[in-house]
Structures are given as structure tokens and as C-alpha cells.
């Protein structure tokens, strides 16, 4: 009898959670856009997925008004010092020349923080530069060449870190992670998006998520593109052949 009661309670709870999750996921399509005044700030977060992903993401950001999109949070993967350097190079060049929207970021500067080596960490960057930005490091969901059967372990570790930064800290400190999150792949950015989804399920402030598919994707979406398409607020591709007529997303042409 007691067991029946417990199990039916569990069922009700589970049904409630499922309803909440499904309503959040479905509601994403209808989530109304906010309205902002011209002078209002917008906290921007961007995931730098290393290599070409980082270059493209920073290229996109270089076009933005950094007074408006302020502060900025750069999320990088563990061990990706190069992305941190490139982000810092962009910040420095924007600070020196705020109107320049064609800053070259392909070659990162070196020696900006005095440590001159490749192990320079985000915290050492932050200490040196009191710019309105932070660099946040999260564990990789999957390393290159990592065997597929160990991926759940690393992915879980990555998810916990994302939840810590996106959900837990804002919840405890009564702040928000960001107003908008820009993603362009690869894998780990999906994990970041899951943490944002958790915020929505819990009903706490969550950033709008914008996904921009890489310039390199001409005829088929990347895996992260396929995974994120139903979850993000805005799904943008750069080649027209990538979108079927009845599916969500838009093509804005070449953005980088």
C-alpha cells in the first residue's frame, strides 16, 4: 500500500518534470524577443571551440559594438591557451580601435601577459588586464581521438562544470550568466546549451542562444548544428543549401 503511494507520487513527479521539460523545449520557438533601449548593455557569452571555430567566432564578434555587448565572457575548453590568446588579441585591438570592425585576429599576439609561453592561463590573463571581459575554462566533452566509450565520463564532467557556471553560480549569487550566448561548435558547445536548457526548466534567467554554422559547411550541417538546431533561439547558416524549406533556421550568407 505504502509502496503504491510512493510509486504513484514518483510517477506524478516524473510526469511533472517531463511536462516542464517538453514545454520549455517546445516554447523555445515562441519565446518572445526582449526589447532594449539603444544605450542598454547586453552581457554576451561566446564559446570558442578552438581552431577554425575560434577564428570564426571572434571574426563575428569583431563586428559588434563592444560598448553595447558588455561585459563579455569567453568560454574556452581546458588546455586551449591559443583561443584565450586570440580572444585577448581581439579585446586589445577593439580597445585600441573601437570602431574598427575589420580587426585581424588570425595571428594572436604573444607576450601580452608577460608569461610568453603556451601554458599561459585565463587567470593570468585576467590579472593583467582589467578589461570588461572574462575567460572561463570548462573541461572538454570529448578530446580529439578519445575512445568513444569513455566519452560519457568526460561529457558528464563537462556538463557539471557548465551547470556550475551557467546555473549554480547565477542561482546562488542572484546574478545571470549572460543575456546572449553565441555558439558555433564543436561538441562542447552542445553541453553548454544543455546547461542553458536546465536554467529554463528551473525557471531562472537564461541567455538567448544564437548558433552560427561554420562557413566551411556547404552542403551538410555539422553534428553540433544538427543537435542544436531544435534547441537554440536563432539558427544561422552561411550557405543556402543547408536548410530545407520546412525546417527552422535562416541563411544570412557569408558572415566571416
Amino acid at each position, binding site marked *: 500500500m505504502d509502496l503504491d503511494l510512493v510509486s504513484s507520487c514518483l510517477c506524478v513527479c516524473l510526469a511533472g518534470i517531463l511536462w516542464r521539460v517538453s514545454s520549455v523545449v517546445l516554447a523555445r520557438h515562441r519565446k518572445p524577443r*526582449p526589447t532594449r533601449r539603444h544605450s542598454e548593455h547586453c552581457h554576451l557569452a561566446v564559446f570558442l571551440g578552438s581552431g577554425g571555430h575560434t577564428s570564426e567566432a571572434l571574426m*563575428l564578434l569583431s*563586428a559588434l559594438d563592444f560598448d553595447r555587448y558588455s561585459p563579455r565572457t569567453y568560454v574556452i575548453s581546458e588546455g586551449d591557451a591559443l583561443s584565450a590568446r586570440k580572444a585577448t588579441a581581439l579585446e586589445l585591438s577593439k580597445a585600441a580601435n573601437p570602431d574598427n570592425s575589420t580587426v585581424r585576429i588570425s*595571428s594572436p599576439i604573444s607576450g601580452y601577459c608577460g608569461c610568453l609561453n603556451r601554458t599561459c592561463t585565463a587567470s593570468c590573463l585576467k590579472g593583467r588586464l582589467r578589461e570588461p571581459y572574462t575567460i572561463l575554462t570548462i573541461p572538454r566533452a570529448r578530446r580529439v581521438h578519445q575512445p568513444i566509450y569513455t566519452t560519457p565520463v568526460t561529457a558528464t564532467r563537462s556538463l557539471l562544470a557548465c551547470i556550475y557556471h551557467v546555473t549554480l553560480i547565477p542561482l546562488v549569487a542572484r546574478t545571470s550568466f549572460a543575456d546572449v550566448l553565441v555558439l558555433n561548435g564543436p561538441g562542447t558547445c552542445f553541453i553548454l546549451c544543455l546547461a542553458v536548457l536546465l536554467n529554463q526548466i528551473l525557471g531562472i534567467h537564461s541567455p538567448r542562444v544564437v548558433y552560427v554554422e561554420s562557413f566551411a559547411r*556547404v552542403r551538410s550541417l555539422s553534428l553540433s548544428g544538427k543537435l542544436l538546431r531544435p534547441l537554440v533561439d536563432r539558427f544561422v547558416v552561411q550557405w543556402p543549401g543547408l536548410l530545407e524549406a520546412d525546417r527552422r533556421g535562416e541563411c*544570412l550568407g557569408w558572415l566571416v
Partner: protein
Amino acid sequence: MSGPPSTPPPAESGPATESSPRKKHAFVTVGSTRFDALVQAVQTDAVLAALRTRGVSSLTVQGGEAVREFNAEQLQAATAGGARYGIDVEAWAYKPSLQEDYERADLVISHAGSGTILDVLRLRKPLVVIPNPSLLDNHQQELADALADLGHLKTCTVDTLAQTVESLDEASLVPFPQFDGSRFREMLDEEMGYPPEPPK
């Protein structure tokens, strides 16, 4: 901002010698991936001869691991091969930035990485790309084909490199548009609820 824009092209192409056409420089890059077939292809007689007919007198090869593993003999063979066609050959594995090499080159032969393609096309340099067939998820081929269809570059295989270099008509290449950040900016401003910018 990082590359000093004032860097003049090296003396290689400097004072024009008598009536001979300007000496040209070619740059070959494999990026951070392994692409030994391309490194080997540019050392073949056919490709060197094709470069020579284009007036190329110096060639720099960024060859990644393939060059790192070169022994002294192989390196010498590479320079000697070039010398037979009057081409100074220089090869090295990696460099943090290739921007200066792109700027110096009159012709770039490259793997089909999207970053390299963007960097080179924005400098309006003639570009021949060779998608690496050993990459499993080969969307490089798609990008190369799409940009070749639009006339921005030429694409070929290591086997057809010599003919492609020889028959390349620089004037027929369509200039690639410069970076325009306004579309992303306007999209994000709209998404975040900012009023549209007043037209200037």
C-alpha cells in the same frame, strides 16, 4: 592588428631586372593537418616546370610533419629539384602565423582549410586548393567545390596540380568579397531587441 601593415615585400621581388618579367613567389601550405601527398607533389618535375612557366622563381613550402621528418638528404633533394628549374625552394614545418607568407606570395597552393581559404582570398591572391582526401569527414571538398563554382579559386587533386597551375588564368578569378560584419551585427541586435540603427 598584429601584422605590421607597413612590412614591404621582401627583396625577392624587388628591383625588376632589365626587361624580364617580375620574379614570382609561390607559397604552399598544408596547415596543421598532415598532407604528405601535397608536399611530395610540389617537388615533382611536372609541378616545378608548371611553376616555372608561370615565372615563379622562388617557392616556400609549409609542409607540417612531412617536412619535420625530412632528413638532410631529402631536404637537399628538394632544393636541388627546384634548382633544376631555377626555383629557390625553402621548406619548413610550422609557423604561428602565415599571414606574411600569404602577403608575399603571387600564388598560393593550399589544403582546403576554411581559415586559409578566407585569409588568402581576402588578400586577393590567386589560390589553388587541394582537398585532403585522407580526411574522413571531407567537407573540405564541398567548400572547395562551392568556391570554385563561384570562380573564387581553383581546386584540383595532387595528380592534376601541374596542369591546374599551368592553365591557371588569374584574370578569370572572381574577387572574393571583403569581410562585412554588418549582417551578424544587425541579426544579433535584432535578436536582442535593440532598435534598428538609423540609416546613415
